[in-house]
C-alpha cells in the first residue's frame, strides 16, 4: 500500500486523501440517516394511526351529539308542522330529506314504527332493530337496499315527546357504513373501518383489504401488523362500544415506499456529495499539483540545460512564491551562464592564443636558427672568411631542410585548426553502430602493431540516431588515441551495448592510464600529452557527441582507460 501510495503522484495522493476524508463520514451519515428515518417512519405510522382513530372517534361523537340535536328539532319543530301526517311513507321521509338525516324514525309508545325514512316499509310494525349492549347510540338498523333491506350500523340519538296526542320516540342519526369508512379513509389516507365483533363483520369501504381479515384479535394497547392480500399492514384499534371497534391500518407498502424513498434520497445525496467532493478534490488537487508539476518540469528543463524554462504562476500562495523564486533562480542561472560563457570564451581565446603562440613558436625557433646560421655563413664569406664549399652546402642543406620541416609543422597546425573550426552540423539518421565500429577498427587495424584488438558487439543493438561520418570520426579519434597510448603493445577492446534510452560504445585500452589532472583537462582543446599532438582529438569527440545529444564518460586507472560514448537511439 505504501508502495502504491508512493507511486501515486501528488494529485493522486491528494485525491486519495480527499476520498479517505470524505467517504467514511458520508457513508456513516447515510446509514445513520436511513436507520433514523426508518425509526421515525415507524413512529410516524403509529402516531398517524392513533390520530386517525382519534379523529374517527371524534367524528362519531360529533355525529352522536348532532343526532341528538336533530332529534330534538324534529320533535319540537318538524313533527308539529308535518303535512299529511297520516301517511307513514311521507312524514319521516320529508323531514329526513330536509334535515339531511339518513336515519329517522318515529315510534309510538309500544315501539311500533309510525313512520321511518330509512325503512319505510316497517310502518305499523314493531321496531326490532338491535342495539349494541350498554350503548343504544350504535344500532343495527334495517335500511332499504334494492328490493329488500339490509342491516346497517348507525349512530343515532333518541328523544321522547308527544305528537298528535300520543307519546312518541324520535330516533335520528346517520349510517356508519362503508361510505363513512371510505370517506374517513380517503380523508386520512389510510384504511379505516369498524369491526362488529358481535356479528363478525367489517364495516369498511368496498374492496378494503381489512374485509379479508377473518378473525382479528383486537387490543387497544397492542397495535400490530397483519398480512392481508400479500401486503403487510400496521394497525391500531380502539373500542367504540363493547363489541364494536374502530380499526385503522396503514399499508406497509406505503411506509416501505416512504422509507425506500428516504433511503434512495439519502443514497442520492451521499453519492452527490461524494461526487461533488471528488470533483472538488480533482479541481483543488489539480490547482495545487499543477504549479508543482510545472515547477518540476521547469527544474527538469533547467537540469537539462534549458535555462530559459520559466513557470507561469497565477497564485500568490506558497506555491506561487516558490515558482517566483524558481523563475528568479533560472534568471540568475541564465545571467551566470552568460557570464561564464563570456569568461570561458575569453579564456578559450586566451588559451587558443597561448596554444597558437606556443605551437607557432616551436617551429619558428628552428627556422630562425637555421636562417641565422645561413646568414652567419654568408656574412663570414662577405668578410672574406672563406667557408669551404662542402661545409656550406651541408649547412645550407641542413638549414633549408629544417626550415621546410618546420614549415610543414606550421601547415599541419593550421590545417587542424581549420578542420576544428569547420566542424559541420550533424545530420542524424538511424545508424548501425556495430557496423560502424567494425568499419573503424578495420581502418586502424594496420597501425595496431603489437596491439590485440578485441570487439564485443551486442546482438540486436538498436540503431542510433547519429550522423554516421561524424560518429566515425569520433570513434576513429578514440581508437587512434588508444593505439597511441599503447606504443609497447596491449589490448584494445571495443564494446557496444544497449543503454536505455540509447546505445553505448566503449573503447578501452591497456595503456598507462590517466592521472587526475589529465582526466580533468582531457577534453580541453589543445591540451595534449603527446609530442606533436594538437590537443583537439578528444575535444572533437566531445563536440560531436554533444552535438548528437549524447555524453562522453571516461574511466581510467593505471593500466586501463575506458571511454564510453552514450548515444541516442533512433526513434522507431
Amino acid at each position, binding site marked *: 500500500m505504501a508502495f502504491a501510495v508512493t507511486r501515486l503522484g501528488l494529485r493522486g495522493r491528494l485525491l486519495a486523501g480527499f476520498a479517505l476524508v470524505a467517504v467514511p463520514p458520508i457513508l456513516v451519515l447515510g446509514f445513520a440517516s436511513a436507520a433514523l428515518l426508518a425509526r421515525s417512519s415507524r413512529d410516524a405510522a403509529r402516531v398517524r394511526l392513533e390520530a386517525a382513530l382519534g379523529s374517527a372517534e371524534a367524528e362519531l361523537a360529533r355525529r352522536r351529539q348532532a343526532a341528538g340535536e336533530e332529534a330534538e328539532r324534529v320533535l319540537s319543530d318538524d313533527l308539529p308542522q308535518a303535512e299529511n301526517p297520516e301517511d307513514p311513507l311521507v312524514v319521516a321521509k320529508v323531514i329526513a330529506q330536509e334535515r339531511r338525516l339518513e336515519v329517522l324514525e318515529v315510534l309510538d309508545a309500544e315501539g311500533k314504527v309510525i313512520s321511518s325514512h330509512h*325503512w319505510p316499509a316497517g310502518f305499523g310494525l314493531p321496531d326490532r332493530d338491535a342495539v349494541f349492549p350498554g350503548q343504544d347510540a350504535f344500532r343495527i338498523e334495517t335500511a332499504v337496499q334494492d328490493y329488500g333491506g339490509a342491516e346497517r350500523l348507525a349512530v343515532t340519538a333518541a328523544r321522547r315527546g308527544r305528537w298528535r296526542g300520543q307519546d312518541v320516540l324520535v330516533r335520528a342519526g346517520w349510517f356508519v357504513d362503508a361510505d363513512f369508512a371510505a370517506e374517513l379513509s380517503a380523508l386520512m389516507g389510510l384504511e379505516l373501518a369498524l369491526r362488529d365483533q358481535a356479528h363478525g363483520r367489517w364495516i369498511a369501504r368496498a374492496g378494503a383489504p381489512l374485509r379479508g381479515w377473518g378473525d382479528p384479535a383486537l387490543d387497544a394497547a397492542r397495535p400490530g401488523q397483519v398480512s392481508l392480500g400479500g401486503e403487510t399492514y400496521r394497525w391500531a384499534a380502539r373500542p367504540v362500544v363493547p363489541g364494536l371497534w374502530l380499526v385503522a391500518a396503514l399499508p406497509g407498502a406505503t411506509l416501505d415506499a416512504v422509507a425506500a424513498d428516504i433511503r434512495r434520497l439519502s443514497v442520492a445525496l451521499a453519492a452527490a456529495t461524494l461526487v461533488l467532493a471528488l470533483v472538488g478534490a480533482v479541481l483543488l488537487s489539480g490547482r495545487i499539483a499543477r504549479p508543482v508539476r510545472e515547477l518540476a518540469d521547469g527544474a527538469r528543463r533547467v537540469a537539462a540545460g534549458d535555462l530559459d524554462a520559466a513557470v507561469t504562476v497565477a497564485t500568490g500562495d506558497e506555491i506561487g512564491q516558490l515558482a517566483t523564486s524558481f523563475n528568479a533562480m533560472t534568471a540568475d542561472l541564465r545571467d551566470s551562464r552568460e557570464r561564464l560563457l563570456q569568461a570561458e570564451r575569453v579564456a578559450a581565446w586566451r588559451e587558443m592564443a597561448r596554444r597558437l603562440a606556443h605551437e607557432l613558436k616551436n617551429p619558428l625557433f628552428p627556422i630562425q636558427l637555421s636562417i641565422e646560421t645561413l646568414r652567419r655563413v654568408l656574412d663570414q664569406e662577405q668578410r672574406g672568411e672563406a667557408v669551404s664549399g662542402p661545409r656550406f652546402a651541408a649547412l645550407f642543406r641542413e638549414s633549408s631542410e629544417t626550415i621546410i620541416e618546420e614549415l610543414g609543422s606550421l601547415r599541419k597546425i593550421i590545417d587542424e585548426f581549420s578542420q576544428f573550426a569547420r566542424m559541420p552540423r550533424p545530420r542524424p539518421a538511424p545508424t548501425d553502430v556495430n557496423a560502424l565500429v567494425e568499419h573503424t577498427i578495420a581502418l586502424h587495424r594496420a597501425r595496431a602493431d603489437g596491439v590485440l584488438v578485441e570487439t564485443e558487439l551486442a546482438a540486436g543493438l538498436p540503431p542510433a540516431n547519429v550522423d554516421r561520418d561524424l560518429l566515425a570520426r569520433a570513434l576513429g579519434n578514440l581508437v587512434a588515441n588508444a593505439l597511441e597510448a599503447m606504443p609497447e603493445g596491449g589490448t584494445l577492446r571495443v564494446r557496444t551495448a544497449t543503454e536505455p534510452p540509447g546505445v553505448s560504445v566503449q573503447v578501452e585500452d591497456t595503456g598507462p592510464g590517466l592521472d587526475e589532472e589529465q582526466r580533468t583537462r582531457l577534453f580541453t582543446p589543445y591540451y595534449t600529452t603527446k609530442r606533436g599532438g594538437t590537443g583537439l582529438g578528444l575535444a572533437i569527440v566531445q563536440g560531436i557527441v554533444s552535438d548528437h545529444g549524447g555524453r562522453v564518460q571516461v574511466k581510467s586507472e593505471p593500466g586501463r582507460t575506458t571511454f564510453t560514448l552514450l548515444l541516442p537511439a533512433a526513434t522507431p
Partner: protein
Amino acid sequence: MRGHRRAGTAGALLAALALAAMARAALGPRYGGDLAVAALSLPAALDPAAPRGSGEALLALLVHERLLRLDTEGEPRAALVRDWFGAAGGREWVLRLEPHARFHDGHPVTAEDARRSLRRFLRSPSPAAARLADTLEGGAAFRARRTEELAGLVASGAEVVLRFLEPVAVPLAPLAAPSAAVLSAGGSGAGPFVPTARVSARRLALTAFGAHVRGRPLLDRVTVVAIPRADELEVELQTRRVSLVVGAGAWGAPASTLLLVFDPSRPPFDDAALRATAADALSRSDLAERVLPGAAPPAGLLPRHLWPPSSAHAEAAHARGAVPATPITLAVSSEVPPLVSQRLIAYLDNLGFRAGAVATTPDRALDAAAHARLLTWSPEVPEPELALRELAALAPDVPGVAAALAAAAREPDVSRRRSYLGEAEKALRASGVLVPLAAVPAAAQARANLHGVTTDRAGRLVLEDAWLSP
C-alpha cells in the same frame, strides 16, 4: 295600467296557444308519429310464447296476431278469422279465415299456416295449450309427443276445423293466448307492427304494418328500449326520452294480481301452517292503501274483473304464532315496486323470518331458486278457467283443483261452471302456496301526448290504436 294590459294580452295569447294545442289533440286520432317505449326487458326472440313480463306482452301483441282474441267482456272476437260456428253438438268448431289477412312477408294467411301454428302451440308449455290439447281429439297424445297425428285439428281450404272429444265450455278461448299466434312458414308474424331492426338486446324498432288484418295502425313506428331498472324507467319518461314506459307506474284499473308464491317443496314453506301464518300476517289493506298506488285488496287469486269476489277470503290480522328465525330468500320480479317487497320483508321479519330479496326479471320470477316469489301476475288468457289452470300449474298437486277444473271445462251451465271454478280457486288458496296480496293495475305510464293506448282483458297494453298528438 299598461302593465295590466300587457299581462292580459300575454295571458290571452298563452290561452289561445293552449287551446290550439288542445284543439289539435281533440281533433282525434291521426296517422304518423314515432313512439319511443321503455320496458324493463326485451325478449331474446320474438317467437310466440306465453309472456311473463309487461314488455314481452306488449311486443307479443305488436308483432303477432292470433286467430281470435277476447274482448273486454271475455267474449271471442275475430282476429285472423272472419267468423266461426259450431257443429256436431258443440264437438266441432269451424273457423273461416279472413281472406285479406297477410303476414309481414306478404304471404296470405292460410288455413295451413293456422294448422301449423296451432300444432306448435299445442306442444308449448302454455296452460291454455294444455287445456286445448286435453279437449281435442288426439290432442293429449300429440302434446305428449306420442304421435304426430292430430285428428282434432284440420285445415280445409280457408277453414280450420277443431274437433273436440266432447262439448266443452269456452272451447275457443285458448286460441286467444298470445302463444297461439299464427306465423307464416318463414316465421313472419301478422301483427300490427313489423320488427325492422334490432340492436343487441336493448333496442328494437318496429314499423307499422299496412296490410294488418284490422288496418294500418296509426303510429308509423314504435321503438322499444330495454331499461333494466324500474326507477330509471321513470327517469326516461320524465326526461321525455320516451313517451311510454312499461314496467313501472300504474295504468288503468287493476287487472293483475300481486302474487306471493311460496315454494312448498322445501323448508320452511313446505309447512302449510307456516305458509298460512305468513300469509295471514300480511295486511292487504296496507299494501293497497299505502304502498301500491292504484291497487286494491285482492278479490281472490284472479283479478276482480275475471272473477266475482270470493267470500272465502278475509283479511287475517293475527299471526298464528311465532316462527323460528329462519333465513329465507324472496325472489322479486322487477315489475314489483321495491316498497312492496320491502313491506313484505318487514312483515316476514316481524314474524321472525330473516328475509333477503333478490330481484329477477319478470320472465324468470317464477323459475328463480327462492323460498318464495313475489310477482305481478296476469293470466295468459283472461278467462277464469284458463287463468286458474295457469295458477294451478304454479301450485301443482293441490287436491281437488284438477278435478274441479276438469268439471268446469265440461260444464256448459254457467252457474255450475262458476261453482266448479270457485272450488278450484278455493282449493288453490287453501293450499297457501299462492297468496294474493293485491289487485294491481298494469305497470305503465305515458306522457300526455300519447293517446289511444288501451289494455286488454289481461291488463296488457295495446298500441294498435295509439296515436301521438303534436
